[in-house]
Each structure stands twice: as C-alpha cells, then as structure tokens.
C-alpha cells in the first residue's frame, strides 16, 4: 500500500506540473549553491594539501621565526640539530645584502646562503638552472637570472662578493614575475646570488641569524618524536623565538582556515535551502486546501489519517528529492566550471579540480529529501487530521 501511495504522490506532483517545478527549482538553487561551495572547498583543500606536500614532504619540519613579518630571523645551531636522533639533515637558509662586483657592473644584491646537503632544496623551490650546474664546492656561486643580467656574468666568470672571488658555476632560469620569484622568507630568487652557507657565514661574521631552517627526518623515524626533540634542542641552545611546524600541522592549519570559510559560505547558501523549504511548505498548504474534498473522499472510502499523512509527505519529500538531485548535478557542474575558469584566469598548470565525494552526494540527497519532508510535515498533518465530514463539505 505504501507503494500505491507513493505512485499516487508522484501522479499528484506531476499533475500540478508548473507549481511542482517552481517548488523544485527553489530547492534546486539552494542545494546547487551548497554543493558547489562544498565541492570547490574540498577541491581547494585537496590541491593545497598536495602542493604543501610537494614543497615540504611528509618528513620535513620547517623552523620559522615566531611572530609576523618577513624581517624576523632565528638563530639556529645546525650542528646540534644534526645530532638529534632521527634527523637526516638540518639546513638553514639565510639571506644578506652583499656588494657584488661583476664583469660589467657592480651593486648591492641579496646573497642567499644554504646547504646543498639538502640537494632537493633547489627542486623544492622549483628553481631550474638555465646554464651550468649547482655548486659543489666552497667558493662557487649560482646566480639568479636577473642578478646575472645586472652584473653581466656568465658561467665560468669570476665575480667578487664582499671582496672575495667566487666562480659562477650556474645561472638559474628566470622565474615568472608575480609568482615564484620570491621563495620562503621573501627571498627574491631572480635577484639573488646563491652560495654555500659557510661562505655566507664567513662573509658576514656577526650573529648567525637565518630566515628559516629545514629539518629532514630520516626514513622510518617518528616525525612527532623528532619534532619534540628538535624543539627541545632549540630551547637548549637558547633559541626561543623559533616555531617548528610539521607537514601535518601546516596542512591542518590550512584546512582549519578553509573549513571555517567553507562552513560560513555553506551556511549562507543553506539559507536558500531554507527558503526552498518554505516554498515546499507553501505549495503543500495550497495543495491541502485545494484537495480538501479529495481528502474527505479518501477518508470516506477508508483512508486512515496515517495514509493521508504519508501521501502528502511523499509529495513534499519527492519535490525535495528531485530538487536535491538536480541541484546536486547543477552544483557539481558549477564547481567544475569554476575550477576550470580559476585555472585559466590564474594560469595554474595543475590547478584544483572540484571534489566529488560520496558523502557529499548522499548527504545532499538525504538533506534535500529531509527538507522536503519536514517542510511538508505541517501541511500533511493538517490534511491528516481533517475531520472527514468537514473535508467532504468543503467548497
């Protein structure tokens, strides 16, 4: 009998075609907005997590100065950090402004010192060599694309940095303006010269203050344990201004922020589902009024209150479900389109794509059916409780 009532509900909804569609569209728009936002949000989250993973890797700890500002620095005792069990490598990156004399011109340029012990470093900054190779010995230098141009140096030339000669062994490919031309800590990659950390330290005696450091965790070591130990060693060596961030935490922080934004936007979009639900309620109240006599007739021929209730709930739930299903499709379409458009606009190669999770699909369908059914509850109750005689007498 439930099946018969459902079939009857479908026919009733189809019968008042225009009104049903208008009601469905109300739910559709709301669901589409929520689904699109969630899908885009999940897609963004996924792609950011992937990128962070690419840059840092799971087994990397980032040591940054606590507090804001690109000028902040941190003192790192790399030797002590390398002693920590489970640490494969510890490097610091430090940039100073140096007086550079090239074959054609001289000037002040940023000089970045780092340790090629972390060979992946160059790859992680997406730095590509245009000519020559990376340095392998002290006294060698790699030039950023614009720095090379400014001082007129080629591979094999000797340039003088702070009165000491360095041999140019490689020149970096130019980084695209506006993105990628600065690395962490605000290093202007195009403008900078790169030397061994130890060379930099000799050129700039004074306190050894780095922009940031990396700790690579050895394979198999527990990242969180190593992190705790690194923090302890930093504190021991008198470095209190440093913050150690693991990959998990970094992605967690990004996710937390994104989730907050997403919940807020979805909440706003959710209001439109609410409005859609009110639309369903309105349609159902009208239907109850219009079909009062019909309800009376059904009761006269043996329909119980529960039958009438179920019939009207089916009708409203059905409109909710259809609206939700269509809204789901539209929402995913919008999200996919948005992903493509954003990819084009910002020329992201591996841009984000909208995420479609099973949870989202099932959630959206259940939710929209629920909105429909709940919106129909009061009208259906009114229909069910109509006294048969009054319903029959209704003009």
């Amino acid at each position, binding site marked *: *009998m439930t099946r*018969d*009532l459902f079939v009857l509900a479908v*026919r*009733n909804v189809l*019968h008042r075609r225009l009104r049903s569609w208008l009601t469905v569209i109300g739910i559709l728009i709301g669901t589409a907005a929520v689904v699109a936002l969630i899908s885009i949000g999940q897609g963004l989250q996924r792609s950011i997590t992937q990128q962070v993973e690419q840059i840092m890797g799971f087994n990397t700890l980032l040591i940054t100065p606590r507090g804001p500002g690109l000028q902040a620095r941190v003192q790192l005792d790399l030797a002590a950090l390398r002693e920590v069990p489970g640490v494969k490598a510890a490097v610091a990156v430090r940039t100073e402004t140096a007086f550079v004399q090239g074959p054609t011109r001289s000037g002040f340029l940023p000089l970045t010192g780092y340790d090629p012990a972390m060979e992946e470093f160059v790859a992680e900054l997406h730095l590509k060599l245009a000519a020559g190779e990376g340095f392998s010995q002290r006294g060698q230098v790699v030039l950023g694309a614009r720095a090379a141009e400014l001082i007129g140096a080629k591979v094999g030339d000797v340039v003088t940095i702070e009165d000491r000669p360095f041999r140019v062994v490689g020149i970096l490919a130019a980084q695209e303006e506006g993105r990628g031309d600065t690395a962490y800590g605000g290093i202007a990659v195009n403008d900078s010269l790169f030397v061994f950390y130890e060379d930099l330290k000799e050129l700039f005696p004074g306190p050894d203050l780095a922009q940031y450091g990396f700790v690579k965790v050895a394979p198999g070591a527990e990242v969180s344990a190593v992190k705790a130990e690194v923090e302890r060693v930093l504190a021991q060596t008198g470095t209190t201004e440093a913050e150690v961030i693991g990959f998990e935490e970094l992605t967690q922080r990004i996710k937390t922020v994104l989730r907050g934004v997403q919940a807020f936007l979805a909440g706003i979009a959710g209001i439109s589902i609410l409005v859609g639900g009110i639309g369903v309620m309105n349609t159902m109240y009208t239907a109850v009024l219009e079909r009062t*006599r*019909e309800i*009376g*007739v*059904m*009761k*006269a*021929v*043996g*329909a*119980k*209150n*529960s*039958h009438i209730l179920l019939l009207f709930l089916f009708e409203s739930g059905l409109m909710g479900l259809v609206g939700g299903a269509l809204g789901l499709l539209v929402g995913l379409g919008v999200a996919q389109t948005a992903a493509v458009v954003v990819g084009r606009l910002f020329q992201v190669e591996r841009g984000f794509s909208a995420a479609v999770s099973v949870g989202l699909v099932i959630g959206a369908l259940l939710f929209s059916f629920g909105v429909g059914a709940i919106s129909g509850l009061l009208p259906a109750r009114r229909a069910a409780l109509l*006294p*048969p*005689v009054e319903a*029959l007498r209704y003009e």
Partner: protein
Amino acid sequence: MTQPLLRLEGVTKVYRMGQVEVPALRGVDLTVDPGAFLAIMGPSGSGKSTLLHIAGLLDRPTSGRVLWAGDDVTSLGAARLAELRGRHIGFVFQTFNLIPTLSALENVELPLVFQGARPRERRQRAAELLAVVGLADRQRHRPGQLSGGERQRVAIARALVSDPQLILADEPTGNLDSAAGREILEMLRGLNERGKTLVLVTHDAEAAGVARNILRMRDGRIEGEA
C-alpha cells in the same frame, strides 16, 4: 428477530458557529435492518445529511449512541472507524466526489488500495464492477471526460467495490438530469433487490419513491413514516 445492521439511539448533533449553537439533530432513533431500502426525505436544513454522515461513521454525534451490527461504535478511534467505513459502508454523493486525477478504474479501486489489496486483484474487481454499471469501455477515462450520469455510475461501482453491507446515498440524483437520475435510481433499486441494504437521503419525492420505506425529517427530528 434479526440483528439490525445499524442503530442510532437518541442521537443529537449540535454545530457551533462561533458563539451560536445550531442544533442539527434533536434526538433521532433509527434502525436499519439488513436488506432494507430506506429513504429519508426532508427539506434542506432538516438534518438529513447530518444523519447520513453519522450513520456512515463520518461524523460523531454530540450525544446518543451509534451501534454497528450490535456493537457500540460511538467512541471508536478514527483509524478503526476508517476501517469500518472502508470495508462495510459504500457512499454515493450528490457531487459524485470522484478524484479528478484518477481514471474511472482507479477511482473504483481506491477503497481497496486503503485495505491493502493486491494490485491485480483490485484491478480485476474494479473492472468487473465498472462492467456491472455499464462502463466497461470507460475504464481509462478521467471523471472530467464522463457525463454526470456516467460519473455517478463510477461512484456506485466504487461504493460496491469492497462488497459493503450498507450503501448510503446522499441526493444521488441531485446533479443529474431526470433521465440519468431515473437510471441511477433504478440501479439502486436493483442493488436492493439483490440483497444490499440502502439508505437514501433526498428532498425529491420521486427519488424517494424507489425505496421500500420513507421516513420524513423536519427540524432535526424524524416525524414519521410516509
């Protein structure tokens, strides 16, 4: 002596219209024996429709008792009453009261749907009854595509579909031309001749004439047999 199918004892009904109380029935006793064909006649406002509604378990009396086959059903729950109506009472209304979105066949099937009958059985039963009322070729027609007389015949088929013990007809010819009206009355008489118990409410003396017994009502009371 046979058990009466339906008995009303001292039934009153008072409607409240805001502050005003309008008495519709002022103490009615009525016995309907199995096989009876009773007409209740009276001017509009005499309470005859109210009486029919209470007899059909569509409404509850303000006071008094309603006995169905000897059992007091006055204070039964709504669901139980719906079940009794569905299985044992068939209604024929002045305005036909067919569901406009359903075909003739589906309208006839409807009482069986609420009784949980299997689709095949109820379809077959409904088709049989449509044939009985001479509408075998109108199964797929919607009420809007049928004439008044045809609609009332569909309604009669619906009233008969669960093989009820009692048929209640409320001005069944009121919206029909005289030819169609006579046809419907003949059909009702035929049903009674084949053993159905009928109660017919009308203000039309000619319609009441098909019944075996006629009761006259005025001002909420049965005045006596005509």
